[in-house]
């Protein structure tokens, strides 16, 4: 009916120029924000690669720092120190965090579970420097000196929310039918949870742990007065230990060009480790059986 169409067309006036211009302008503005946000990302990575690649060499990866004024030396002890501290932290937190995740997924579908969940979210927002104070206060003050253990405790506290939350999410993705099948066979609940549910969700749980690693691997603030840093090798849990982010910080604010160079190299190593972990996690989450996560 052409008459009705004409009626509709007259009833809906054409979009005014002002509205069309506003629409165009806002689209342009949104694109502009994306460009502005991505610019520093590209600038940071570009500069990091540019300065870092030129400074990384075999000595950097295998030697300990040289005294000020001497060229050469490296951050090998800091890289291993970071691994050591992370190892201590994860030894403390991985069983605990996974346990808490199991509790939330299997027993915590109630008000108390909601409280724990909320607590986890709140812990996630605690400033890392405050976590450092707490680790200082519960470990360093008793040991009476800085130590790798204190650094590990600090990182452990920071990893709790991530591990706990992802474990819960991954366990909840395991189909209920699997649990029921196990119960039907007479398998007790603890056995079902550990050998069926947790086992099915293993790749997802590992993903969570990796995410937590990636999150704390670059943390500097909580290590300042716990692990403290060290110019030499250390593998004693109760001695001050070097860590990669700490070393980058100290070198970055120093006045020496040689140290600046090494800070960039250290930063490149750190970012490569972290981005690899994050990308791997993304890949596993996408491709694995937990695509809906």
């Amino acid at each position: 009916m052409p008459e009705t169409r004409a009626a509709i067309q007259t009833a809906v006036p054409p979009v005014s120029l002002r509205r069309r211009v506003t629409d165009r302008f806002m689209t342009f503005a949104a694109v502009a924000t994306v460009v502005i946000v991505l610019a520093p990302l590209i600038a940071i990575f570009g500069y990091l690669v540019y300065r870092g690649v030129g400074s990384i060499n075999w000595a950097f990866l295998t030697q300990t720092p040289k005294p000020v004024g001497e060229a050469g030396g490296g951050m090998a002890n800091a890289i291993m120190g970071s691994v050591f501290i992370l190892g201590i932290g994860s030894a403390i937190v991985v069983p605990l965090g996974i346990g808490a995740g199991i509790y939330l997924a299997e027993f915590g579908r109630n008000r108390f579970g909601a409280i724990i969940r909320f607590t986890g979210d709140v812990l996630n927002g605690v400033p890392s420097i405050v976590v450092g104070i707490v680790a200082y206060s519960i470990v360093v003050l008793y040991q009476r000196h800085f130590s790798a253990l204190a650094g590990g405790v600090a990182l452990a506290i920071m990893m709790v929310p991530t591990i706990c939350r992802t474990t819960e999410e991954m366990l909840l993705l395991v189909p209920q039918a699997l649990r029921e099948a196990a119960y039907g066979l007479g398998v007790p609940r603890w056995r079902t949870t550990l050998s069926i549910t947790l086992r099915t969700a293993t790749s997802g749980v590992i993903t969570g742990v990796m995410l937590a690693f990636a999150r704390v691997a670059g943390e500097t603030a909580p290590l300042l007065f716990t692990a403290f840093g060290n110019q030499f090798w250390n593998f004693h849990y109760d001695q001050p230990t070097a860590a990669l982010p700490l070393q980058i910080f100290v070198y970055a604010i120093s006045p020496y060009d040689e140290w600046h160079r090494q800070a960039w190299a250290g930063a490149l190593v750190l970012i490569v480790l972290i981005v690899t972990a994050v990308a791997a996690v993304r890949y596993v989450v996408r491709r694995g059986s937990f695509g809906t996560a």
Partner: protein
Amino acid sequence: MAPLRHLSGGEIPDRVFKFAMSACGLSVLGLLILIVYELATRSGLSWHAFGFRFFKATDWDPVNEQFGALPFIYGTIISSVLALMIAVPLAIGVAVFTTEMCPKKLRGPLSFFVELLAAIPSVIYGLWAIFVLVPLLSGYVQPFLAKTLGWTGLFEGPPYGIGMLAAGIILAIMIVPIISSITREVLMVVPQHQREGVLALGATRWEMIRVGVLRNARAGILGGIILGLGRALGETMAVTMVIGNRPEIAKSLFAPGYTMASVLANEFSEATGDVYLSALIEIGLALFLVTIIVNALAQLLVWTVTRGQPARGHA
């Protein structure tokens, strides 16, 4: 059932298992209580010595054991607010672009790159800020701002680069990913028929976004912004490296400042004397309480919109 139960070891292992897992869950709560307890008891000395004056006094004099935290509180608030002013429009723009405007194919990579910003450690932001951002500010941006907006008094003084402005900008870069990822999540739960309804009324795309999407998602976006604020308040390393670390209250954004987190980073391991240490821990306690309240508020706001789906601030 009974014989089967018996076969599988009875109820005892199940109870033990449930107990052990509950203990793990409880330890999360215990951890939070431990943090509060440690901070509260160890800051007692300072609280007794200075009382509420601690938060109003501006003198920070470790030698004479006189401590006032106002310059740090001021620096924390100003740098965070500055960061929000820069980051909020950008983050919302990015979120709107990714959910409403960009081709589907671009969505994944774009959000991945923005999330990559969140994965960069604070200390690397600081390193970059010292060697790239600060020279850029002192060489180009600050002289320009001083010339054009110097009359406001906010952009006065020598353009050293290092100072409140640099801290605000680096913080803004760091909190954009959080605000934008939460905004994106919130925008995605706005029902499709809202968009279609507004479009059917003859709205342009921008009008649809403004009326149909952003207005519906207000509470959640606000939650994202507050979560970003929480992150900015507690951010330590990058700020410490560029803010100048001087406990002064200055109007100009070019002037150096100091934040609560940075004073902890710089002075904690060298604090001699119990009152000094206690005063620093009291700053930590104040910072903790403020970020907790801010974060809890943000979580609640985001929850009301996404209904129980967790908000992801980090990682």
